[in-house]
């Protein structure tokens, strides 16, 4: 999966968590919690959706790396997503 494909997928997953948000207005390097007013439950649900979509394990200690959109893209790329998550089945 390319970085752009991962980014689009991340934005789609964030849209499920915060449906009122406009993905085009999200800044890639700003903390998601601040941009989207998401809480711990939202963030956990987002981490679960990343895990299912990209089939990657996400230890809790890695959560800080998922704080921004850029961070999510880097994390997914760095952890070897095979790009065949649940929605591709």
């Amino acid at each position, binding site marked *: 999966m390319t970085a752009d494909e991962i980014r689009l997928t991340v934005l789609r997953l964030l849209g499920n968590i*915060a*449906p*009122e948000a406009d993905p085009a207005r999200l800044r890639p390097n700003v903390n998601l919690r601040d941009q989207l*007013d998401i*809480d*711990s*439950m939202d963030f*956990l*649900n987002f*981490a*679960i959706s990343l*895990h299912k979509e990209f089939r990657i*394990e*996400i*230890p*809790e*200690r890695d959560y800080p790396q998922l704080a921004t959109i850029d961070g999510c893209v880097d994390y997914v790329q760095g952890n070897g997503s095979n790009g065949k998550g649940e929605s591709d089945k």
Partner: protein
Amino acid sequence: MSEFRMPSLGADMEAGLLVAWQKKPGDKVRRGETIAEVETDKGIIEIESFADGTLEKIVVPEGERVPVGTLLALIQTADEAATPTASAAPAVVPPASATPPPRGAPSPAVTGELVPTSSASTIPRRAVSPAARRKASELGVNVDQLPGTGPGGAVTLDDVQRAASAAPPPTAAPPPAPMTDAERAARMRQTIAAAMSRSKREIPHYYLSHTIDLEPALAWLARENERRAVTERLLYGVLLLKAVALALRETPELNAIWERDRAVTRPDIHVGTAIALRQGGLIAPALHHTDRKSLDELMAGFRDLVNRTRTGGLRSSELSDPTITVTSLGERGVEAVFGIIYPPQTAIVGFGKVVERPWSIGGQIVSRRVITASLSADHRVTDGHRGGLFLSAVERLLQEPDKL
């Protein structure tokens, strides 16, 4: 025959729109099963049956908005079916403008308490001949508003036919349109305002706070989550909920509902969890039997509750059953929150942000992660001494998270 009425799903709910029936006459219903959907300012709520039995008759059709307490349907309970000699007298159907029960009074439909049959004697029943009642039903005439010319003012068949011929031809009124998000948000704001104003006006609050060392709980949670897949992880909020529930066992006076000018301690602990809505406002549905559930069960229940609060599908019992509320604003950077009690409850617990503070342990100053727990409670029901014992119990329980 048991009466299924529009339940009160909040201290200041006055009416609900019957959106859909999920059962039809003749269908079996089970206690706790959803049989109707009602729209309130909290969204579409699934209304549960309070008894096992058979849905006998639907009184209010889909699309009608009716006051709290209005008879919606009749249910023949399993007991009645088993003993046909039991009184099968039809329950009295109140007029559409039935007076809602006192604010805060639990609805029979949501507490599991059946309306006592003696309630029939409290509602004046019009004398109506059987033929007149049958004809009135066919013609859509409300016999309760008819002047009767029969003996003792009884409504006769002629009275009904005269009223029907004098009445303008019925026109099908369009069903009320569903509320828009903006309308629902405005209504919710009004509801919150009414409930909170009432609370501040009627309940003499007292407030306590207690700073709790959360290090043992957070360290335990980190170890626990390290060995769990992301789908199985716990949030620290679940530990707080469980500690509150177990502390209520030690101070049951705080697990009480104010009813008819007195506090009634509830045997079951149903913690209401304040959940913010993305479009504004909040709802605090119950996590039933909070004290009896494992942390994993609480986590699953909490996640489900958050999802359904934000996307729809809350159940009537979840809105009517909370015996206390827990609210947390820590994730918004707030260090302490002193809540306003949600009537008819008599206490609310608040949690602030987890912060690092210097802490003295065995004469040594160390850095610890701490949280401020607060209690707002009804001084008519408890005093500060009991409240202090409760907060101390919460602190003690959180020092041994593996036992929660």
